[in-house]
Every structure is written in C-alpha cells, then in structure tokens.
C-alpha cells in the first residue's frame, strides 16, 4: 500500500471531523474521496498534505510515517479548490515557484515549466496573470504548478467545484487522461457522486467522520455496504412495505428498501408478460428528463420512481399500469441486502 492511514481522528471544537479512520491507497491509482459536506473528506486530504494536524493516528506514505514531516517536505502536490494561484505572478512564475524554492538551476526550471505548459495546453500564455485566465485554464495552471516539483502524490481538493458545468465535464476527462499519462498516485475530494464515479479508479465513501465503503465505482453501485452508500450512490427512493411487492418477502431486520429506477419496468395495463409478478399501479405524475420520462407511480400505497423510454407510447396521469420490480436493496440498521425478485428467478429456471 502506498498511502496508509491508520486510526486517524480529528476534532474541531465540538465537531468530530474524523472518527478513527483507516484506509489504504494503492500506488498509481486515482482515488476519489466522496461524501456530503462535513463528512471529513477534506480533513483527510489536508491531514495527508500536512495542512491539518490530526489529534491521533498515523499517516504513512511509501512505508514512512510522515506525521512529523513538515508539509513542505512531504513531496506532495496539492491543487486547491479555488486554485490559490499566486495572483501577483505570471503563469510561468506560478509553475516555476516550487522549483525555485528547491533551488534548481535555471535551465532545468525553464525546461520543466515549458514542458508542463505544453502538457496543460496553454502554450503561449506563460506571461499571463491568473486574472487573465478562464476558470478551466486556472485549474490547469494549478495542476501544473502542483506537478512541477515532481511530487510522489497529488492531492486535489474539489478540483472542479468552481468551474461551470460544461467545462467541468471536459476538464474531468482531461484530468483523468493527464493523470494516467503522468502516472502519479492521486487523491481527489468531491461531493458529486457522478464526478467520483466517472473519474476515480476507487472511491472512498465518507460520512460523518467515518468511512462507509471503499471500492471501485461499480462495486459501490452494485454492492453498497451500508444504507448510506446505497442512498448516496445512484438514484433511488426509499420505501417501506416492500414485501407487498410481488416476488419479495419480508426479511428479519430490514424495515425499508431502496428501489432504483433501473430496477423497475413499467408496462401498459395488461401488456406485462409475467402476470404472476406484476404489480398494479397508477401513474401519479411524469417528468420529462431530457433523455427519458420519469414516472412516479403509486403501487398499493408504495411510491415508485421509474424511467420510461420516450420512444414508447406515453402514459397519461391517472392511467393504470403494470409494474415489475426486479431487484431491491433492503436496508437494515447498518447493512444492506440485495435481493432479486423470486418469481423472476423461477421464470429463468423455467426458460432454461
């Protein structure tokens, strides 16, 4: 393990930012620290960087305990949320700053800065000041500045938060590609699940100062370990009385269930092929979602949200429909049980 955090705790006054956290990160991966605000993700990042001193616990990088190493000597590159570019320095001087501090010779600095400026695609803009750059360009400069001194580890604090939606998508892809090109172990903080899923190799999901789950984006989506993880990743509605749905029975210790739009299929009344697992419902409202239609359906008092293709014949509000639910995440106190529709299983065996 390249970065190893052991039993890290940190409080700010009465607020517990980190509560005995342990996590390890492999070399060469791009890890997303995902969680709602106040969940401790930024505190983890700042503790690794040395900008925050943990109350207890150890941080190891490449096998060395770095708790007592000052921030400037940890060999870490840091990209700040609002860039934190030196506003009284040009793009060139911003990127060269770290190298000048290391007292590298001028020729090397010049070469390295030129190389980075072309890596971030800002050739010809080296003499500009930060205020003369767009948000995306500033972010790229901040990235290059962090990379300049050849850090072993790159930390990014909400790298896309201050950028408008359209550029953000483009920059995400760019960052992902550039990081894999440079091949540096990177950790970034985000509260946006879509961003985390799209960019990271692995996600560390935090909540209230604790780690809920660590895994690949797909693992978190498919096998959420905790009710929080199930609710935070992907879309879904929480329902009670899930056992009234056909094909599901009550499980001990699981009071409610999470149902995702992708778990449900909606048919015009009487068009369902499997009557023995079809629930009757009524369309309550529908929303146009750009590439699909979102239906809110009342199934015997259970409110279900489903996506419906725009290619099919549209539903009217108040229209009775057939609903098949294929899977559910049953939510316990702190565990999640994924269950398939039992009747669906039977169907499969029959077909085979």
């Amino acid at each position, binding site marked *: 393990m390249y970065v190893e955090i052991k039993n890290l705790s940190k409080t700010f006054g009465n607020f517990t930012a980190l509560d005995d956290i342990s996590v390890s990160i492999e070399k060469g991966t791009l890890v997303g620290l995902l969680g709602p605000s106040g969940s401790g993700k930024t505190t983890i990042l700042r503790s690794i960087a040395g*900008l925050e001193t943990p109350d207890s616990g150890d941080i190891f990088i490449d096998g060395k305990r770095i708790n007592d190493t000052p921030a400037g*000597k940890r060999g870490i590159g840091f990209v700040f949320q609002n860039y934190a570019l030196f506003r009284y320095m040009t793009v060139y001087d911003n990127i060269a700053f770290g190298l000048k501090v290391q007292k590298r010779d001028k020729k090397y600095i010049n070469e390295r800065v030129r190389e980075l400026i072309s890596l971030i695609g800002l050739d010809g803009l080296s003499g500009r000041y930060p205020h003369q750059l767009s948000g995306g360009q500033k972010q790229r400069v901040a990235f290059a500045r962090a990379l300049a001194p050849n850090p072993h580890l790159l930390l990014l604090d909400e790298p896309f938060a201050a950028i408008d939606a359209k550029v953000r998508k483009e920059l995400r892809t760019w960052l992902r590609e550039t990081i894999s090109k440079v091949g540096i172990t990177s950790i970034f903080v985000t509260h946006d699940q879509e961003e985390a899923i799209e960019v990271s190799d692995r996600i560390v999901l935090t909540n209230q100062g604790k780690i809920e789950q660590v895994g690949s984006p797909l693992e978190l989506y498919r096998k959420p370990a905790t009710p929080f993880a199930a609710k935070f990743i992907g879309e879904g509605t929480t329902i009670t009385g899930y056992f009234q749905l056909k094909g599901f029975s009550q499980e001990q210790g699981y009071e409610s269930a999470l149902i995702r739009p992708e778990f449900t299929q909606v048919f015009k009344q009487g068009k369902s092929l499997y009557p023995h697992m079809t629930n009757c419902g009524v369309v309550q409202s529908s929303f146009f979602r750009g590439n699909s239609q979102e239906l809110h359906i009342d199934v015997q008092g259970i409110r279900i949200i489903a996506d419906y293709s725009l290619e099919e014949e549209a539903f009217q509000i108040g229209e009775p429909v057939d609903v098949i639910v294929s899977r559910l995440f049953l939510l316990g106190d702190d565990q999640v049980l994924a269950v398939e529709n039992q009747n669906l299983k039977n169907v499969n065996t029959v077909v085979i």
Partner: protein
Amino acid sequence: MKRQIKANITKILLISTCVIFVGVMLVVPLASVIVYSLREGWQVLAKTVMDQYTIKALQLTLYAAAIAVVFNTVFGLFSSWAITKFRFKGKNFLSTLIDIPFAISPVIAGLIFILIFGRIGWAYDFFNSHDIKVVFAVPGIVLATIFVTFPFVSRELIPLMHAQGTDEEEAAALMGAKGLSVYRRVTLPHIKWGLLYGVILCTARALGEFGAVSVVSGKLRGKTNTLPLHVEQLFQEFHLTASFAAASILVVIAIIILILKNIVEYKGKKEDELHVR
C-alpha cells in the same frame, strides 16, 4: 423622464450638501490658518517658522513620529500576520485590544504614562535609579505617540489579509517555501499598497498628536515641545500670528500627506483592478 429629473435633483442636492459642508467645515478654516499667518506679511511668517523653538519643536515632532511609525509598522505587520493567518485562542480578544487606542481619549493615554512612569508611578524608581527620565522628557512623548497611533497599520492590513485568505500561503508552504520567503513573495505583494496607506495615515496622526503628548510633555520650550504643543503655547500667549504661522507648517505637511495618500490609493486601486477579479 420624471424619474430622471428626480434622480438628478437628488444627485445635485447630495453633492452640493457635501461640497458646502466640506468647504465650510474643512477648507475655509484650513485656508484661513494660512491667510491669518500671512496677515502681517511674509517676514513675520518666515521669522516664526525659522524661530529656533519652532524648529526644535518640528524636529521633535518628526523624531517622535518617525519612531512611532517604524514601531507601529513592524507591530502592524506582525499582528496582522498572526491574527489573519493563524488560529489560536483569544484571537478575537487580541484584535479587540489592538483597538483600544481608537476608543480611549488621548488624554487618558497620557495619564496612563504618568501613572506608570511619573513620580507616583510604580516604574519610577527603577528608571530613576538608571537615570532615565520618561515623563516630561522625550521618551514619554515617543511612548505617547506610539500608543495613540498603535492600531493604524494593523487595522489597515487585517481586512486586506483576511480577504486574501490563507490558500496562497498554504500552496507556497506545501512547495517547501519557508515562512519568511512565503511572506515576502506571496503575502507582501498583496498588501504593499495597503501597508503604505496605513503608514501614511499613521504618520499623519503621529505628527498631529496633541492630547496624550500634552499630558506627558511638560512643555519645556526647545526641549519637550512638539509642534502642535508649540502652536497652542503661542496661542495662549496671544502671539496669534506666530501661532498661526507655526500651525501653517502642520497644514502644509497635512496637504503633502493627503497628496501622497491619494497617489497611493490610486495606484493600489489600479493594481487591484488588475489582479483581484
């Protein structure tokens, strides 16, 4: 149309009120100081200005102001750095304490020093045994000036540095830059115009200080008399023209400082427009 006329009337009213007020309250009195000092001709003015006591008083005023400005600049840099860039207990309290000289009457400030260093003061014996005279001597005047002008530089810098936040410093520190180098290369460029502005304000205040200095000075002509005190003394002795002549020196200094202040403000603003957007 109507609305525009209304807005115009408001504008004209506001501007003329301001101009009249400033004119009556500030410009006319200041101009009359100069006019009055010239009442008996240039010779009298020149004579008073060149008078050895006046020159001594001017020297002492400049001397005390210079020390106060240097001291308060250094203190202002340190305190604003500490208050804005670090977290510690009692920070708000400290920042309130710095404001005391703003809130307190200068006379009280002067009395404080009498109470400490005067014949009845607890520090008197110590300094007396070392043959150092504080009260009714130059050190007392310097101390009083420092006290009164204490918050000027830090008050100017604290909001500026607050607005800047700590991100840039943290970024520099993460790349291995040491504290002083971070301050010089990242913090100082940001605050330099504000700093200059604070220094100018502090200088103006230090040169004009009357209340506190008047208590501790003892007003010995040619020894512990500052220029503002000298003006008052001449006035009390009914040397009206001479008094106004001495005062005109202060007025001229004030005008020079105002011009400097405006230049600094203008330059600072121009640079801000360039960098902070």
